């Protein structure tokens, strides 16, 4: 049995339907219309210890709801979930000691006081022994580069600085599992890189199982080998990022620098545009592989330089969402 087992989890929210306007507002005073949203609908997956899984999907797909169920915050309507043999929402107190959570859009640090005071508070909340606490804290301060900011009241920190403190706060008790819900939201390139490197190192050194949601595909590509795609509350794809890439990355744009004229016509060539110093060719690699293509044109063309563009992962995701109509 896997470390994390999620079986057919569903959760429905009831929302009040409210139309705009005074008349409607008055009506809803007496009679409320409700509608139901299936935030997650029959979701199943399993995750092994030490894995990093990217949990992706468009806004409102049910990502955060799943994370909240997995971290024991919400109770699902149906389905079962076992993490290391524990059901999160049933043995909540026992369970949450094993996990760390970072919600990128929320804060767990006390606003008016320095982050270190919140750390001390967390030490008591998680009953961390003094020595272990000091060691972990020192390590986190060093790795996340917190030495200069830990004594400043949190409200005066920049977003990037605060997020680093947030992550440290979630790891003080050395959790076995770390849930990261959009940890890099709003961060600049340098802070993002720092956070990513840190997460990677954490996984490598401590074998922490990491479940990550993000809309920044660079986060996912640099961290997760496996992704779970969710849309409209259902799992649409569960597998390696590479497979997904291969499946969707069929069209490649190739820049060829040449003085000669390219006359080739073939089924796989979707588009050919004359550029200033050569050609831009859009190739369908399923019809015609890149090596085959090069082989053919190099017979009668002298190639001075060549550049093959990768389709960005963002484009792949957009395509994927389109295909699944989510």
């Amino acid at each position, binding site marked *: 049995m896997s470390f994390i087992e999620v079986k057919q989890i569903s959760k429905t*929210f009831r929302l009040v339907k409210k139309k705009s306007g005074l008349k409607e507002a008055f009506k809803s005073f007496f009679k409320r219309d409700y509608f139901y949203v299936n935030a997650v609908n029959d979701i199943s997956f399993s995750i092994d210890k030490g894995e990093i899984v990217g949990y992706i999907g468009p806004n409102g797909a049910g990502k*955060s709801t799943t994370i*909240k169920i997995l*971290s*024991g*915050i*919400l*109770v699902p309507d149906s389905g079962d979930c076992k993490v290391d043999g524990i059901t999160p929402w049933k043995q*909540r*107190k*026992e369970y*949450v*000691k094993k*996990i760390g*959570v970072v*919600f990128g*859009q*929320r*804060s*767990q640090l*006390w606003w*008016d*006081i320095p982050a270190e*005071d919140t750390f*001390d*508070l967390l030490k*008591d*909340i*998680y*009953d961390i022994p003094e020595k272990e606490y000091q060691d972990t804290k020192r390590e986190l301060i060093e790795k996340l580069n917190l030495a200069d900011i830990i004594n400043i009241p949190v409200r005066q920190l920049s977003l990037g600085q605060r997020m680093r403190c947030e992550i440290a706060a979630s790891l003080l008790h050395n959790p076995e599992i770390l849930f990261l819900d959009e940890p890099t939201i709003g961060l600049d390139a340098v802070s993002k890189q720092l956070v990513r490197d840190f997460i990677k190192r954490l996984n490598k050194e401590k074998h922490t199982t990491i479940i990550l949601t993000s809309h920044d595909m660079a986060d996912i590509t640099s961290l997760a080998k496996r992704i779970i795609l969710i849309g409209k509350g259902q799992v649409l794809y569960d597998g390696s990022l590479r497979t997904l890439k291969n499946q969707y990355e069929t069209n490649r744009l190739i820049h060829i620098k040449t003085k000669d004229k390219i006359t080739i016509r073939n089924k796989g060539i979707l588009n050919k545009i004359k550029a200033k110093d050569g050609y831009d060719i859009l190739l369908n690699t399923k019809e015609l592989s890149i090596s085959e293509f090069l082989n053919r044109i190099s017979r009668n063309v002298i190639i001075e330089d060549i550049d093959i563009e990768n389709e960005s992962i963002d484009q792949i995701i957009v395509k994927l969402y389109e295909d699944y109509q989510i």
Partner: protein
Amino acid sequence: MRAYYSYFKLKFISGLQYRSAALAGIATQFFFGFVYIMVYVAFYESGSSNVPMNISQLITYVWLNQSFFALINQFYKDQELFQLIRTGNISYELSRPKNMYFLWYFKILGQRLANVVMRFFPLLIVTVLLPEPYKFSAPSSLLSFGLFILSLFIGTLLVTAISTLYPILMLLTMNEKGVVNIVVVIADLLSGVGIPIVFFPNFLKVISSYLPFQYISDLPFRIYVGNILLQEGIHNIFIQLFWLIIMIILGLILMKKNLKRVVVQGG
């Protein structure tokens, strides 16, 4: 226990930062104290003889109410907790391996104590030095002073237990007004902070005796001024304890129930 103590301590320390709010509070309390006292003095001078509390007792009772107002009033609502629920930051609180009820309880207790510590001392110092009849008097006896301390302590725990119910209710209603405001106004009336319970008409006295609110501050203050027989006072302290336990149990049950149905706001 350490965790709850830390929560309490942190809230207490950060509560002590709000000095200008405390100064404003002290001024308000003086103002209300004088208004009440002048009204009572006018009543007493107009010659009613059949009164349940003599004027010096009553004035001390008023000053006690004003001095400890921050500790015992019903209007205190923990904005930070409401904010937490409204914005969805409650996610973090829910992922802590501790009992949510007691985390909140000690947060509110810390805040209330911080508020009162900055206010009651200046008020007592000044009112002790006032001329008769506005003067704040010493306790009626050493024993009643001891009982007063004990009873005020339990009263503080009781009012905190009641205030903790409000954010718990808000977990479902998502709004801190509505029901809570109705409860707050009734509780304020029946707690004796405005008009002491002894002046209530009989039917209201009866209703009030079946509710916890008069055991928050009316009981300890009446013990202090000696308006209650010691034996009856001790008897009432047991009722106070009973209400404290009931309110805590009610809070624990409601919290457990509401957490199952909680909806975390936003993303």
